[in-house]
């Protein structure tokens, strides 16, 4: 799946490079607006938004997950799946652990969807739901902020530490302040692979678990300042980590005070003052590959391609659709758009080929890739 996403994005980037050049040539012919060489090849989308008005069980969408033609949305009032242009809703009546679905993960081998809720962890398998709670299972806590599936293991981030369910043995292993370097046990996110598992811990930085050696490591803010950044690019930007995404051996970590990228040796931090981020307050970062990532902030959705940035949102002042672009030299521009994600407050994102699906505080947005790109002043 990840290879597919990467491939799609490479294709998208090439398409944009090509179409951008073509468009600019056309713009010149039509009188031109701006120097084409400054226009970065970032994607533009047409957004279609889903709310309770067209089938969602709630406008508060915490999480989104794409599985081929299916799109799952974890909302405050149930788990919704969009297939064949219709929504199907799962609630506690069908066995969902809780109506508020905070996180989602796909077991690519089986097609099962794992839903972290405010009342436990649910496994949705071809319509049947099995729920694990802190009372009926070894789950450490019912508030499940994050979930990630790797092989036969389901890794879970909860309000009381992390845990792992081995699907073959049924054994739960709990990770907390007693057996890891975790100083706080409020675990907000988890990203698991066969080699490394990373945990985003609110107030305790980033935890790394090496699957081979079973050793733990902790990455935290080297300046230990909650309000200041004294040592930029020297380590994690802040200890209040809200999410983590491990892809292509690169760690992408979001915090409420900026974002970080770590390649195993060097850190690079992203702040509003020196990047295209619309806000340092970031709910989720999702890496596409080593150089591309999406940032879900409280002031819009941001895309980074390794050099250029784009922001998609309703304008903070007018509420009108807005797309902002910042190139590698720091030059900014606006791209005229007629649609935007349903809200500025972005909580999650997932990819469907070259399209994106975005969870926001007021609806779920489907970003459909458009082939034309026009930069304006």
């Amino acid at each position: 799946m990840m290879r597919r996403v990467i491939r799609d994005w490479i294709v998208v980037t090439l398409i944009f490079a090509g179409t951008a050049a073509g468009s600019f040539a056309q713009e010149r012919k039509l009188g031109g607006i701006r120097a084409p060489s400054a226009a970065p090849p970032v994607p533009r989308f047409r957004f279609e938004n889903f709310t309770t008005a067209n089938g969602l069980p709630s406008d508060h969408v915490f999480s989104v997950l794409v599985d081929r033609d299916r799109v799952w949305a974890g909302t405050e009032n149930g788990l919704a799946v969009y297939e064949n242009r219709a929504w199907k809703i799962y609630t506690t009546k069908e066995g969902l652990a809780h109506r508020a679905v905070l996180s989602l993960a796909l077991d690519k081998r089986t097609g099962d969807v794992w839903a972290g809720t405010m009342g436990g962890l649910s496994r949705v398998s071809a319509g049947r739901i099995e729920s694990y709670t802190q009372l009926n299972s070894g789950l450490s806590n019912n508030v499940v902020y994050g979930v990630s599936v790797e092989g036969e293991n389901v890794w879970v981030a909860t309000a009381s530490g992390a845990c792992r369910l081995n699907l073959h043995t049924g054994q739960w292993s709990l990770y907390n302040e007693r057996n890891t370097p975790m100083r706080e046990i409020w675990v907000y996110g988890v990203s698991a692979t066969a080699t490394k598992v990373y945990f985003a811990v609110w107030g305790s930085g980033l935890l790394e678990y090496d699957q081979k050696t079973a050793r733990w490591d902790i990455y935290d803010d080297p300046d230990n300042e909650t309000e200041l950044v004294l040592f930029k690019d020297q380590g994690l930007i802040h200890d209040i980590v809200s999410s983590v995404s491990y892809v292509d051996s690169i760690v992408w970590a979001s915090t409420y005070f900026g974002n970080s990228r770590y390649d195993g040796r060097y850190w690079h931090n992203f702040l509003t003052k020196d990047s295209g981020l619309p806000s340092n307050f970031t709910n989720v970062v999702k890496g596409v590959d080593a150089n591309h990532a999406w940032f879900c902030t409280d002031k819009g959705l941001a895309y980074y391609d390794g050099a250029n940035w784009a922001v998609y949102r309703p304008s903070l002042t007018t509420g009108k659709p807005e797309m902002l672009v910042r190139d590698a030299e720091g030059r900014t521009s606006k791209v005229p758009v007629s649609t935007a994600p349903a809200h500025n407050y972005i909580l999650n994102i997932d990819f469907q080929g070259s399209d994106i699906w975005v969870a926001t505080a007021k609806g779920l947005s489907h970003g459909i890739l458009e082939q034309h790109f026009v930069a304006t002043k």
Partner: protein
Amino acid sequence: MNGSRTKCCVRGGAVSWLACGAAVLAGLAMWPAVNRPVLADTEATAGTQPDYASPLELAISPDGARLYVLCQQSDEVRVLDARTYAVLGRVSVGRVPRGMALSRAGDRLFVTNSWDDTVSAIDTRALTVVATWHVAAEPSGVVEDFAGERIFVANRISSDVAVLDAKTGEEQQRLMAGRGASYLTLSADGKRAYATHVYPNPPEVATSAANRTAPESEITVIDAQDAKVVERVPLHSIAGVFHLAISADGRLGAVAEFHPKNLVPLAHLEHGGAFAYTLTVFGADVGKPVEVPLDELERYASQPFGVVIAPDKSRIYVTIAGSECVLAIDAPRLLRFVHDRPRPASGSYARDLSASANYVVARIPVGHNPRGLALSSDGRRLFVANRLDDTISVIDTRSLRVSTTIALAGPATMSILRRGEQAFYTARYSFQGQIGCSSCHIDSTFDGIQWNLEPNGFGIDIVDNKVLEDIKDNAPYKWNGANPNIPTECGPRTEKYFWRSENYDDRTLTDLVMYVRSLPARPNRWRQPSGDFTPAQERGQAIFERAVDKFGKPIPIGNRCSYCHSGPKGTSQKLFDVGTRKLTDSSGIFKAPQLTNIALTAPYLHDGSAATLEEIWTVFNPDDKHGRTNDLTKDELNDLIEYLRTR
């Protein structure tokens, strides 16, 4: 590959063998009634079990030349000439084989070994095991896809379907199936695999009355090309789902199942209060799935197991394991019934004992405990594996009579245990032949259901059905310890409250008791092969055996896990009040249950109110009466459970 386990034995002397076989067949033909057990002789012995074959499943080669017989007790596959019934060979497999399937070309035969957790791949030309692959816990059903790329294996304990690479045996994924996943069928076009399961699924919605809800089961439909579950066909009020058949045109499916009536007192057998035995039919010919009864007025079809559909879809044949017969169903009449009758809102005709007269056209007596079925490609000969007779009945489907009974070579005498096993599996002793021991103790284990066994009122003294493993010398019996020994448990209690009909004679009761006493524990899947404990299991054992709580306070001896659950079986055999009495219980004093394979037997507590081991302590132990546990952290409780799983 496990060549050392392979045994191929082609018996020589074809002429003498044929002569011998002819004599045997002649003898069998003169039996007055094939469903009567073979008379036991005076040499019957207890304590040892001769090497019976116990044929469980059958398969016919694609060319119709061979009949493969899976012999569960002798751990082998016997290969017969499908026309002469001469033995062509024997292939040893693993322990307690349960499922068998041929590849599409018939060149490979796959056998699941339920006690070894392996699959044997047999080369059918050489009749040797060419590979033995490890799979998950208690593999049962097996099928290979048409492309020969994947093997699907239903695992009863892990309740899933494993997908293996058909060439290497490497497991690719495990798909969640129903609880106790056991039987698999491939559709005629090879596009779908259907899995069924013998224990009901856990209730999807946890409620305080979850142990008093009708059981729910499913048919798990797997896309064989994508190897993913695409649908779960719900089977309401069903627990115990066995073989499933799909018609050659793919438009009709039928699955054999138990419909327990566990919400009313079981003792009300005279009111039909125990089980309905049914088929659920589904597919394009049916529309929405429909449950149809196999029972007749005054004569039940106890414990249906195997199902086949004739190639021309004229008939459906079902083995009725507890009633020692095969039902022949006229499929077009069944479909007319389903379409013409007003359909109940529930989609079930299970309560209508007059229904089966519309479509059951014959009830054909066969041997003891008929299980697997195989139909010749022309549909004229139906082979039936009589597990507890070591015979195979050959039914002429035109006359609907047994034309031949093939005796599998084996012990000539009947052991006490064998007679006891026959008594265990038959429904002949109960009123109208409704139930046998094995109706609730599926394959001599349990059924995962909570029953209302006492005749003292609806909803009083609900009890969870216990597993029958290693229960000898473990008196008293019953949750309330009211039965001092197994003869009382199996004799007066069963006869009075359950059978409501015929008493056992002394010899049969002795046989039955000996059989029940002989039931071993299945291999524990949570113990490491080395015998060592994992760190979590070690920590859990320390908690189980501790005498001091985490605050340094001594735990009274009666409040330690290891006191009530002492000894090798994890029971002191004494009665205790651990604070689990419910409003519906006459008493709060219960016998400490043994811990043998406790991980397999959810739900827990006397009434099944604890859905999981965790709930025993997180929900039902608020005052620490069921052991001192409320000082434990979640990690420590998890460790305790890891240890309990090794018992």
